[in-house]
Structures are given as structure tokens and as C-alpha cells.
């Protein structure tokens, strides 16, 4: 991969990667760090990465970084014993469907959320999502289906509530 190709990928993929990270972990600084780390690793391995598959490579790195961050956050939350904190859903802004949906996204499983994000935001095929997340096509498809069902249920509950 040449420098020009790499820079082209930066321009074409950094937004999508950042979006994917931000929608997942909700923290701007963490999302930016994930993007930086992903592109740094891409640069280091530029000679070993097929330029046609570097997008999937980037998202796989970002996904792994996110997993690490989320696990770390979970550990910290467990230690802080914040059981008295109000559920995030109750703090959400219900003024439109988009924030409701994004809030609902945060309530489904990590796996389901990621496959849906990759599918909807980035338009990846099941195969590509599988490459990023080390899943088979069927596993991806099932996770998307289950994730959408879960979202559907959450949204349905909210509709009833409202």
C-alpha cells in the first residue's frame, strides 16, 4: 500500500470508522483514540494488508479496540457500584425517533449492536461483517435479526409508555 493509497483510505474511511466507534461507546475521546489506533496499525501493517480489504481490516481493529474499552468500562462500573444510578433509558431524549433508536441500541447486546451498526451505517454485507467480527454469515444474519427484534421490542415498550 502506497502513501497515497493510505491517505485516500484516511479520507474515505475515517468518518465511517469514527461514527462506528462513537455510536458504540458514546465517548468522543475514546472514539477518536480508536480511530487513531486503527489507522496507526493499518500504517504499520500497510505492506501486509490488501488495499481492497483494508476497510474491513480497519473496522476489525476498531471493533477489537472497542471491545477492550467496553470491557474496561464494565469493570470500572462494577467496581464503582453505581446501582443507584437511574437507567440510561430514562435519561434519554425522546424528542425524536433517532435518539430513541440510538438509546435502544445501547440496550441490546454488544454483538447485536455492532452488526446492526456495520450493516446500517456502513452497508457491509454479512460476509464483510463476519470478517470484521470473526463470525460466519449465518451468525451475522441471526445476530442482526435478533438485534432488530430486540430493538423492536424496546421501541414497542416505549410507544406503549408514551
Amino acid at each position: 500500500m502506497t502513501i497515497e493509497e493510505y491517505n485516500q483510505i484516511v479520507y474515505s474511511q475515517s468518518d465511517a470508522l469514527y461514527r462506528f466507534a462513537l455510536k458504540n461507546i458514546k465517548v468522543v475521546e475514546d472514539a477518536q483514540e480508536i480511530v487513531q489506533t486503527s489507522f496507526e496499525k493499518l500504517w504499520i501493517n500497510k505492506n501486509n494488508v490488501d488495499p481492497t480489504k483494508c476497510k474491513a481490516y480497519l473496522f476489525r481493529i476498531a471493533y477489537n479496540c472497542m471491545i477492550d474499552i467496553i470491557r474496561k468500562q464494565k469493570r470500572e462500573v462494577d467496581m464503582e457500584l453505581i446501582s443507584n444510578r437511574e437507567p440510561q433509558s430514562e435519561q434519554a431524549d425522546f424528542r425524536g425517533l433517532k435518539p430513541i433508536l440510538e438509546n435502544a441500541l445501547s440496550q441490546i447486546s454488544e454483538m447485536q449492536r455492532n452488526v446492526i451498526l456495520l450493516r446500517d451505517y456502513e452497508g457491509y454485507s454479512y460476509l464483510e461483517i463476519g470478517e470484521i467480527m470473526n463470525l460466519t454469515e449465518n451468525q451475522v444474519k441471526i445476530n442482526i435479526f435478533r438485534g432488530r427484534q430486540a430493538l423492536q421490542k424496546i421501541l414497542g415498550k416505549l410507544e406503549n409508555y408514551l
Partner: protein
Amino acid sequence: MKEISEELQWEIFELLEGNLSSEESLIILNKIKSNKDLENYHSSLKQTYLLNDDAIVYINKQSLIRKSSWQIYVSPLKYAAAAVVVLCVSYLFYTNQPTSIQKQPRVAKNETKKIIEPIEFNKREQLIPMKLTNVVTVEDPNSSQNIPLEKLSLNKFNKHKKQFQPSSKLIEEYEFYNNLTANTYLSDEEKKQIMLKWLLIHSANYCACQDDCIEIQPTKNIALNDVEVKNDQQLSKQWINEVKQMIKSGTIPKIKLVTSRKKEKWLPTLGIQVNTENASMIANIIE
């Protein structure tokens, strides 16, 4: 709302995912239209599809951009160039430092008469009189080996005598003197030696120009007491000026290459004896 079978749920999901052909899609759509529950399920599932949020952009793209290899390698080149400059400056500084005269273990003997060729009048070399670059051979007739007495003179001797330019000499002399006195780090002994060498060379120049000849006579058994040895202060102010005036006026101080006894042993020391009208000076050049 009736519970919808999983098969139908999958079919609607496949429809929304765009995995069905147009015919299959048409069949499912007809099913949905005909069933209110399916329609509700379809619309609620459709709501779970996220719309791409183009408003979210990564603003630090420039920090990810890599520069071309040429720009990457500029810095090391700059460092290398800077290193070369530093080394050159260090070298020049080092080579400009007056050092003690190289010790000469050889002993000059009598009966040697050499013609010193005109000296190329090189300003830089004048300013760096300690840099020994030439050889005056003083042969020992009693020895089977013809051992050169090296590095007595300082500058390169000019093969073409006429290149010597007395008209530039005053300027050079003036600058040389300033330089010498400005270099306060020089010890008096070093100044003395530098002056003596300088005088020797200029005398040789004059002599070479006027007579094509100068005598440098190694002389045995001249005790230091035979000539008046000036102290450093006198050397730097009075005696040297006197010699310099002589040189300027065209009068050549008498210069002899002498050897002297040191500590009851003969000839371990080589010196220069310069005689003016009023005084005589002998200074050790090589010990």
C-alpha cells in the same frame, strides 16, 4: 395482536434486508398488506433500521495523513548536514589552537647550510603559525644516516620566489600581531615561540627575496649564557617589535639555528638565536 410465526418474521426481515428477489418480495408484500398484524410488525421492524448519520465526521483527518517519503527523509538530512557543519567547525577550531611544538629527538649538527626558499605568503598560515608543514633538513655529516630535522619552519615554502609580496606584508604582520595579542589563552611561552617562528619565516622571506639566501646555522656548544635571554615581557613588547621593525625596514635580523646544552648533557635542545642591533635572543624551539 396475534403472534406472528418466526417463519413470517424471517420473511419480513429478509424483505427489509433486501435479500429477496422481486417476485419473492411481491409475495411477502401482498401478505403484509392483507394482514394488519403483519403490517404492524413490518412497520415496527422497519423502524429499527438506522439512517446513516453523515453529520458525524472525524475532524482530525490531517493528523492521520502520512507525508511523502521525501519529506520524511528531509529531517535526517538536516541532522546530517548540521553534524557535518559542527564537525567542520570543531576541526577548524582544533587546528587553529596553538599547540606545543612537536618534540624533536634528533640533534642538529654543524656544517649544514641550507637555503630556505621563499615562503608563500599565506595569510591563514600566518595566523596559524603553530601548524608545522614544512621541513628544514639539517643533516648530520658525522652520521651515516641522513636524518631530517623536521618541522622547524611553519609554512609551505613557495617554489617561486617572486610570489612573495612585501607590499602585503605589513597588513599581514599587523593582523598577525593583533591576532597573537588577542589570543589571551596563549601562554607567554607559546607567544614567544610563535613570534620566533614568525620572525624566522619573515626573515627568511626577506632574505630569500633580496639575497636568495639565508643561513640557518646549527651551532654546537653555544651556551645559553652566550646570548642575552630576554624575559617574556621584554620579548613580547620590546625585542619582538625591534625585530619586526628591522624586518619592515628591510634589515634582516641575524638568525641562527642553535643547539644548546641542557642539564649537563649536550645538544638535547634546539633553539633559534635572533640577533638585532641591540640585543640577541635565543629561544628553544625544539626540546
